[in-house]
């Protein structure tokens, strides 16, 4: 080939912007850029904040390096431990019933005709996609002391013969009485997420081969034995997934307590979860540094809890 031809071909041979090797990165770019801006940057910024004392109204330049000071403050802060206790309390009280109810519910739904099942699953799933504002209004009125449906229903139960000892005589102040607030919040969380778990377990149930049940029936296994030895082991992977999601969700519980207590966490901070406290510490009490430090402590805790769950459910050795 002559040099003249080579020369003529050069512009056409110019390396294209997207090559086979770089194409994956180009395709990933939209996500990576968005993640960097809205995911990675806030993450690193909060890590930086955790080691600084910052008066936000002075601008970004006004940071004072305090080393581990914010972490030390957080660990000695009574409200931090109080909020952590609230978080654990609400986590257990809302997540355990979620799974205990969702599994049998999913089993029952699984045995139904698909049309009826789909309608019911849709209904159970509704709370999960309902807007929080609507939930706030709904439960605000349900929990109302004097005019709420829940107290009205309790009153009706109490008026049945032989049941008056079971319930208190006066109307329960669900949202202002610190002792009642936690159960009220746990109820809302349970109501909101039980349908989501039903969908998870239903999906897992449909992957369990039918012949296993047929074989078990032939061998004379009862319904409980089938549930115990076929269904539950079949759900194990999903159970791990569901419980992990519940742990993460519980540790980050924010919306429900926030809206039910007007963003304050309730009397005696009874409904103030760690996430609500973090928010309040930063935006109501102006301490962004300590709030960031606490969020990293929570992250560590969450990591440990997830690790413990995986350990508890055990790796499949077989």
């Amino acid at each position, binding site marked *: 080939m002559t040099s003249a031809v080579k020369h003529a071909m050069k512009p056409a041979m110019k390396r294209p912007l997207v090559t086979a090797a770089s194409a994956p990165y180009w395709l990933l770019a939209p996500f990576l850029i968005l993640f960097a801006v809205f995911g990675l940057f806030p993450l690193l910024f909060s890590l930086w904040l955790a080691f600084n*004392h910052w*008066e*936000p*109204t*002075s*601008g*970004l330049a*006004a940071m004072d390096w305090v080393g581990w000071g914010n972490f030390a*403050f957080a660990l*000695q*802060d*009574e*409200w931090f431990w109080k909020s952590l206790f609230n978080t654990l309390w609400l986590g257990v009280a809302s997540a355990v019933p979620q799974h205990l109810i969702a599994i049998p519910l999913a089993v029952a739904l699984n045995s139904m005709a698909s049309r009826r099942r789909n309608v019911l699953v849709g209904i159970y799933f509704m709370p999960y996609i309902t807007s929080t504002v609507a939930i706030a209004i709904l439960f605000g009125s349900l929990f109302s*002391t*004097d005019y709420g449906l829940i107290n009205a229903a309790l009153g009706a139960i109490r008026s049945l013969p032989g049941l008056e000892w079971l319930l208190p005589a006066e109307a329960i102040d669900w949202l*202002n009485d*610190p002792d009642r607030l936690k159960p009220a919040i746990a109820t809302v969380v349970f109501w909101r997420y039980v349908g989501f778990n039903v969908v998870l377990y239903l999906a897992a149930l449909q992957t369990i081969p039918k012949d296993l049940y047929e074989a078990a029936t032939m061998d004379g296994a009862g319904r409980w034995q089938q549930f115990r030895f076929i269904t539950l082991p079949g759900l194990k992977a999903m159970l791990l997934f569901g419980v992990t999601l519940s742990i993460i969700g519980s540790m980050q519980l924010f919306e429900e307590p926030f809206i039910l207590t007007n963003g*304050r966490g309730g*009397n*005696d*901070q009874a409904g103030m979860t760690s996430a609500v406290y973090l928010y309040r510490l930063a*935006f*109501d*009490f*102006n*301490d962004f540094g*300590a709030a960031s430090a606490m969020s990293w402590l929570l992250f560590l805790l969450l990591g440990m809890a997830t690790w413990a769950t995986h350990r508890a459910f055990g790796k499949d050795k077989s």
Partner: protein
Amino acid sequence: MFSDATRRAALGMGFGMALGGASAQGAPQRLNVAAYPKLDAIVRAALPAWQARHPGVQVEVISREMNDHHTAMITALSTGSHLPDLMSLEVGYLGRFAQGRGLLDLRQAPLNGERLKSRFVPYTWSQAINKRGELLALPSDIGPGTLLYRNDLLLRAGLTEESLTRSWDDFIAAGRQIRARTGAALLAHARDMKDILIRTGVSGGDGLYFSADNKVLVSTPRFVRAFELARRVRREKLDAGVYNWSSDWTEGFRRGSIATQMLGAWLTGFLGSWLAPKTHGLWRAAQLPEGAFAAYGGSFYALPAKADPAKRALAWDLMQHLTLDRRLLLDAFQAHDIFPALVDTFDDPFFDQPLPFLGGQPARKLWREAARRIQPVAVHRQDAFADEVINTELDKVLTRGKDIPTALGDAERLLVRRANR
């Protein structure tokens, strides 16, 4: 008048160049003002007159709900972007904002804001000054505390106004009689009693919860007495047990089951317009019991330090218009029951007019007197936290019988840890 003359002189000397320079470029000037409800309406109402003096200047009023507004202002100040040229601030937030360096010190030349000191009610002026002595805002309105009471209930109980206001002991005794003869509660919540008592007798230079030298004050006799009287109110079943701004609170006013309420004078307007309009003519206003004077709320205007310096002169001029224009403030007082912080307004005959909602009582004279006598209380950046801690401990005293020294001791322990943060 005097204010206009000063402003024009200042403009002529200090800002003439800035203004002249900007208009020479021919670009239309545009100011952004961030405000929360009621103040936004007042800013809008002020614009026609102000724009007549500044033709070609466009003003955009960005209005947000009170909490959202302040969160947005924190964000804007912290990042230095989307800063308004002029922002309104509620007194509770001003204390927090004032600790930082995001707001412009209005003492500096050519603003020389300190010369305006005598124009405002003394206590509110000192709220605008931070620990470093910087002047960070100009006050627009104040909330002199008042005791509103249901005159009809008082008459039925065979009491006079004096029996309510002579002393706190008499106030509680009157409550007992009101409860016995009319069934109404003396107060909405025992917490109201605590709120007013911790605001009275604050030593000069101290804040509500922290002293001038950052000592925690919640174990002082001021708090002990506030807690004791609140507990007495609860023990004698003299409060309705409903929190301010709850639906039961509103309902209590409408049904006449709450006989008195101590809050800012602005409550009168709220009662008349939406809380309980049908109780028209039944209420009266008095000074707080035992010669107490306290402030509830108030608004300010401030300039962000990092806002566009080219527009600073205009923003400062608008700010002065909003805080020093007698007519504008009196109109706002009339339309929105927003009590002006400008002393110049105090000689207006409007103060002597009867208030139909209060049965024709010329109550603004009372509030004017209160405004002059309220003592300044220093703000601390942990006030919001302290407020919550104290309310929590009071609730424990009221509902679980926790003893007062332990409750205040627990509160003190929490606050000591925060005092230096």
